């Protein structure tokens, strides 16, 4: 190898990292939806919100997780995915506090 570059592996590894992240987010959403579904309207609303957040995360991560060719990096996707994670955390806090009351 005369050039130090590896065009194939770095984008592939990053793509797989996006897939792992999407899988983890899906499991967390399932846990949140399970906690939310208490059978009353408020619970159904929060459960619906978790699924909406998951849909947004799916739409955000999908191009990065399946993209072919030269990988794009950075951009708004990263802060938005973090925001989705914070959203799931806050919905979780809401659900835990609601069960106390």
């Amino acid at each position, binding site marked *: 190898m005369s050039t130090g570059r590896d065009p194939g592996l770095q984008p592939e590894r990053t793509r797989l990292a996006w897939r792992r992240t999407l899988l983890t987010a899906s499991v*967390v959403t399932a846990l949140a939806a399970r906690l939310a579904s208490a059978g009353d309207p408020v619970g159904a609303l929060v459960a619906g919100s978790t699924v909406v957040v998951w849909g947004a995360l799916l739409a955000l991560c999908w191009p990065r997780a399946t993209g072919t060719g030269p990988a794009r990096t950075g951009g708004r996707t990263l802060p938005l995915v973090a925001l989705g994670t914070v959203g799931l955390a806050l919905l979780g806090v809401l659900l835990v506090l609601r069960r106390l009351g």
Partner: protein
Amino acid sequence: MWEAIRRWFDPAELRSIGEPPDYRFSLANERTFLAWLRTALALVGGGLATAQFLPPLPMSHLREVIAVALLLLGGAVAIRAVDHWARTERAIRLGEELPASRFPAVLALALAAGAVLLVVAVLVRAIGGQ
């Protein structure tokens, strides 16, 4: 603080700083961000699992306190992941040293302290129950 938040969502500004780096470094930075995000998601998942699968604990509301602490910690890790990614990207583009951070050490110590507290709680209960 709002300025920093605005910067996270403005990729054009980040691209205007310094030199375009070797894309491998940007990809590595992005993977580090994703690894931290999975750490955040694992903490959030742990909090959600604690809230619904742990039986009520003898100390009142201890289960809820553990769950909320894990959830908030997860949110904090996610926010810090974006901030660190943006600062690292900036440093790479400017050819500066990468930002140093105490956060991993603080997170590890906080989790270890929480684990020790719970071990003590389990032991106290086991001995007290006899």
